[in-house]
């Protein structure tokens, strides 16, 4: 649905030049929620802004639903943007318009008639659970409510893509969760493809099907969240399951990642019993990802090489992802 290929974008010139995007290639499948994580300054905003051509890359292509956004201008570009909604960290609502009028702006732009605008605005406000606030002004709303208006405005014209630039970064944790759940729900109900960027791992954990990790204008890894978690030395995995430094030990150390299946099985006890190993637990982290228990455990396995490799093979045969650290 979205495909970014070899995109480069620099700001400034000479010694002060910053490569905000340094040969970025990525793709987002139709209907999925794709999260780009990275620290501030990584180039996330620049990336998402090239998708709807708010930013024009120096080179490379950006396709959305088959259209090359970098080639569009004028009327064609505006039309393409009707199909790509966007929400923002600071909501960007018009202070002089009521909630309903803010949503209607989107429909005024697409050229809908007055009656149709009204009906559609109220309908979409219902969808984001804000029908009671149609006549309020943004200043009278909480942050979460403001973002709901932002979502309603973005989706009023029935786009197939939703872009989110740190949409929950100005919200408290509870509200963040509500907004993320709403985005997830809407993406299902309206078959939306969602590209969101964030500096918070929690966002990826809660709603993303796929993710990319970005740093200094480059994408360091990308893929489905599950696949990334079970990839050796995955940055996403390490960030989601921080197990800390490995303590000095002469024994073998392994890390087991399990998604769903094995959490309720007594893996460690079994290991001790069947292989006669005195397993030591060095660290563990469990997270709910997409409603499934996912976790990583770091174990110390005393014993000779053969015992250890036998144990590792056994764990792998149970469908667990095992990384031998040392």
């Amino acid at each position, binding site marked *: 649905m979205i495909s970014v290929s070899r995109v480069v974008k620099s700001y400034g010139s000479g010694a002060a030049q910053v490569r905000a995007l340094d040969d970025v290639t990525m793709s987002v499948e139709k209907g999925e929620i794709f999260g780009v994580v990275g620290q501030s300054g990584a180039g996330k905003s620049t990336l998402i802004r090239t998708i*709807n051509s*708010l930013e024009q890359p120096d080179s490379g292509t950006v396709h959305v639903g088959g259209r090359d956004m970098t080639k569009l201008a004028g009327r064609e*570009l*505006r*039309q*393409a*943007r*009707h199909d*790509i*909604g*966007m929400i*923002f960290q*600071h909501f*960007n*609502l*018009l*202070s*002089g*318009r009521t909630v309903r009028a803010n949503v209607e*702006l*989107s429909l*005024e*732009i*697409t050229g809908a008639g007055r009656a149709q605008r009204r009906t559609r605005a109220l309908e979409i406000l219902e969808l984001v659970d804000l029908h009671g606030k149609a006549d309020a*002004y*943004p*200043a009278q709303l909480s942050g979460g409510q403001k973002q709901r208006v932002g979502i309603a*405005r*973005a989706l009023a*014209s029935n786009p197939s893509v939703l*872009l989110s630039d740190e949409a929950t970064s100005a919200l408290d944790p509870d509200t963040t969760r509500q907004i993320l759940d709403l985005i997830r729900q809407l993406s299902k109900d309206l078959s939306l493809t969602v590209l969101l960027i964030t500096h918070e791992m929690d966002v990826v954990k809660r709603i993303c099907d796929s993710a990319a990790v970005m740093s200094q204008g480059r994408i360091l890894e990308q893929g489905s969240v599950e696949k990334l978690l079970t990839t050796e030395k995955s940055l996403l995995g390490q960030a989601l399951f921080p197990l800390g430094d490995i303590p000095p030990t002469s024994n073998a150390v392994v890390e087991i990642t399990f998604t769903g299946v094995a959490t309720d099985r007594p893996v460690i006890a079994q290991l001790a019993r069947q292989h006669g190993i005195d397993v030591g637990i060095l660290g563990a982290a469990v997270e709910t990802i997409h409603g499934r228990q996912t976790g990583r455990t770091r174990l110390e396995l005393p014993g000779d090489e053969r015992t250890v490799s036998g144990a590792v093979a056994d764990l792998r045969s149970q469908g667990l992802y095992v990384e031998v650290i040392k």
Partner: protein
Amino acid sequence: MIDRNDPYFWADLLDTILRGAGETFYTVGVSLLLTVLFGLAAGVLLVTTEAHGLLARPFGSRALGVALNRVLDVVVNIGRSIPFIILMILLIPFTRLLVGSFIGPTAAIVPLSIAGIPFFARLVEIGIREVPRGLVEAAQSLGATRWTILTKVLVAEAVPALALGLSTTVVGLIGYSAMVGAVGGGGLGDVAFRYGYQRYSPEYMFAVVILLILLVQLFQSLGNFAARRLSHR
């Protein structure tokens, strides 16, 4: 010297003051219309033709944007830096060319508008600058045209600031109109000068001053009220 004991003294005073006020309203009213029209356009252009502004490349040309921005900036600065009394005199030939004479309420419109436009343009510029850039981006992301963004975002969001700017401008124009009046532009300034000063009538002078104070109060309060009502921040 006007005879205060003349039985028609107060009736004449009222008559003269009302005629003067009428002329002032006419002069200031028309000047204000022109000021708002051109000042708004100039103020909006001053902000939007800057680098990365909405009209950074009018008709696809950045050079045109830069030129427009520079010229407007210089013109507005010149307009703002010439003291009104000098501007008024400088403009006499131009006024004569335009309206055939430099005396009378209609002629007064020329210097008043030319002083008012750059004044209001700066106030518009300040108001538009305060509109957060994110709002423009949001509208762009929705596929809005530049005209829509200009009218429904930049100007619409600046309306409370514009209302305040408008009342400040009206007050300024009333002040200037008195100055033009004193040199033949009619209106309340003319009354104060000819009756109050040249014929030593403190009653006339006093009446004009009171009326001016009331007018300024009225317009400033109206502006403040409108700004408050229009702002939903």
